[in-house]
């Protein structure tokens, strides 16, 4: 955890505690907003965008404040691993959705594919 070195033990404790509290606060805000958007009936398109963007931000918040992976040199290896995994995850997940929806569309033309 990237606690500054020059702090006394009590200060370092406070510093770390503040990190978790900040994380919790940000995560709460980023959770409450999309939930209320859905509960109070925001239009579907706008709500989906909001959910996606805030979800991604919240993941970054979790990584930063709970998993403690940041830009500091001592966490560089974990950061690389996370980014590499993220890249592969993106290739696999986005690729799957793209390929399979494309096939679905061509197999059954005229049907609404995302028709919840």
């Amino acid at each position, binding site marked *: 955890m990237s606690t500054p070195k020059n702090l006394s033990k009590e200060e370092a404790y406070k510093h770390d505690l503040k990190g978790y509290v900040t994380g919790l606060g940000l995560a709460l805000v980023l959770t409450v907003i999309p939930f209320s958007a859905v509960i109070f009936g925001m239009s579907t398109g706008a709500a989906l965008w909001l959910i996606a963007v805030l979800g991604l931000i919240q993941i970054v918040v979790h990584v930063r404040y709970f998993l403690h992976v940041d830009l500091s040199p001592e966490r560089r290896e974990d950061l690389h691993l996370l980014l590499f995994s993220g890249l*592969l995850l993106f*290739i*696999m997940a986005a*690729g799957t959705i793209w390929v*399979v929806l*494309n*096939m679905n569309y061509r197999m059954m033309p005229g049907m609404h594919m995302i028709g919840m």
Partner: protein
Amino acid sequence: MEHTSFLFGRLTLDAIDPLKVFLHPVSTNLIILSGAAWAVVLGGIFVFALLTYMGWWKPLWDNWFRSIDHKKIGIMYIVLAFIMLVRGVIEGVLMRAQQADGLHGGFLSADHYAQLFSTHGTIMIFFMLMPFLTGLMNVAVPLQIGARDVSFPMLNSVSLGLTIAGAVLVMVSLVFGDFSTGGWTAYPPYTGVSFQPGPGPDYWLWSVTLTGLGATLTGMNFVVTIYKERAPGMTFFRMPMFTWTALCTAILMVFAMPPLTVASVMLVLDRYAGFHFFTNALGGNMMNYANLFWLFGHPEVYILILPAFGVYSEVTATFSGKRLYGYGSLVVATMAIAVLSFTVWLHHFFTMGQDANVNAIFGIATMLIGIPTGVKIYDWMATMYRGRVRFTVPMLYTTNFMVLFVLGGLSGIILANPSIDFQVHNTLFLVAHFHNVLIPGVFFGMLAGYTYWFPKMFGFRLNDTWGYISCWCWSIGFGLTFFPLYVVGLMGMTRRTVSFTNPAFEPWMLLSGLGAAVLSFALFALCVQLYVSIRDRETTRDIGGDPWGARTLEWATPSPAPHYNFPAIPHINAREAFAVAKEAGAGYQAPKTYSDIHLPGDTMMGVVMAVFGSGFGFGMVWHIWWMALASFAIMALSFIGRAIRGDRHPHTVPAAEIQAEHEAWLEKVRAITPVTRDLELKQANLGVAAHEYMEAAQ
């Protein structure tokens, strides 16, 4: 619905294959089916009796089954690979014999033939090549990076146990019931419960799931090992090429096995619990299976080939007596292949129905992989250029690989073009292509590595004469068997057919059958080689540990390497450090001080996983729920128990013992007359290389 009893699940007397030959009218097909079952049963009894008679159970138990020594685990992986290789080759030969007679209907039933190609593919990929490369990685990587062992020795034993459990299931399918007829890819809905209600696909699912889990753990283990256990001074860019390729393969294992696990878990849910992931009915989508399977399947191809590339790199440099040419470009090419391998999976189902733009993008991505692969071929050729190349057995495998693999790679570039793929997909052209990359590509690499590191594993070299015979038979047999398949494939002969009606195919099929005969002789020669080598081991002793005048760290230790690998952790300050040290006359040194070495203790976990993993799989396949549940509980509880207790028997090797052993070895090395490379294959080669034309590598 089938009858299920509590005690035996769905297992009934009709399912026991050895009995079938007595219960039904006799046919060639049935004799082969029951004969294989009898071979497994009698082979098992024979091995059991032999081990008992020789009194080998206790030494095996004490020194091997419970061992966490990476070299021993590696050897056990290779033994497994050899056993499965024998079955896989026999099945391949049977298929070629069937098709040689295919115009007249052959001698196998369609169902039996379908089981043969399903098990052949499953075995060769999951239970022959994967254990083989994992074995070589286990043997070589920790030695190459100057480590005591892998990072998680107990987990290494667990991986081996899970792999064995999967292999046991595949072998057991010969005795109880039928294997899947759905090919090694097991596409639903054909492998779904409505088309194959029997145990076949379940055998496939559980054996692949168990071994897949083992491979994931192996991957994690080796990534961490290579990241964390390198000796001081062994920077990434000083690592031997084989270690680099092992690293990339391990990364691929970590990230590419999960899609396979997901695909097989979903198929399990479909088959056992009536889910609709891939069914025809109620909104299932079988295209998802093809997609998930190949998300794993394509990186898997590179999991297989990269370690082989690593072996070729080591072998080429060693037997050309030169520094490896283009080290940096080889590293970059390996990493590029590893990443690109995740972007091309769709080329396995170009014809599934997505539009032309999607196909074009994946076609281009596929062709891109040809570039880094080409770089590697040029690097190896440049390494040989102006070297004094010694055509030993490993080197011969390497040169034959270079010629044959390039042909296979080129047919791959042809297939990467979707419009051509539409013409030849599902024909024997494709079968010829992937055998052309897997046999000369991966399998030759495994055999080269086996021959190359054999003295490091056992302290004596393999017999050369039988090695040459075997190598040429594999090469010629491969050409005879698979080049005709390109031809009939282009003529339109579909794959996986038990018989055919076009007489134009027959001459090619006969030629291919002849090739299969040569391949079976190659396998025979490989077995003879092992027998002759053990018999004549006194004439091929490797005492100094460096029989090939090699360049990397594993050759700086005695052969076979002591269980602690190095008397003290070496400090590395060059690439190809051993070559540099030998050049400076400092190849064999004593540490200034010795200290105690702490090693992890032996473990039962591997045995537990192998025995109860098999029990779990068997119980699931036959719906014997008590057996599955009990086996799973035992596996889970012993794993948790071991995690809580930790290693209860860690083991310390006293400094004095290490010093005595190491100095005794150094004494022997000084007494040995170093040999020049002209005497490399002679009895005089006791594993200490003379200075010759070795080029400094800085």
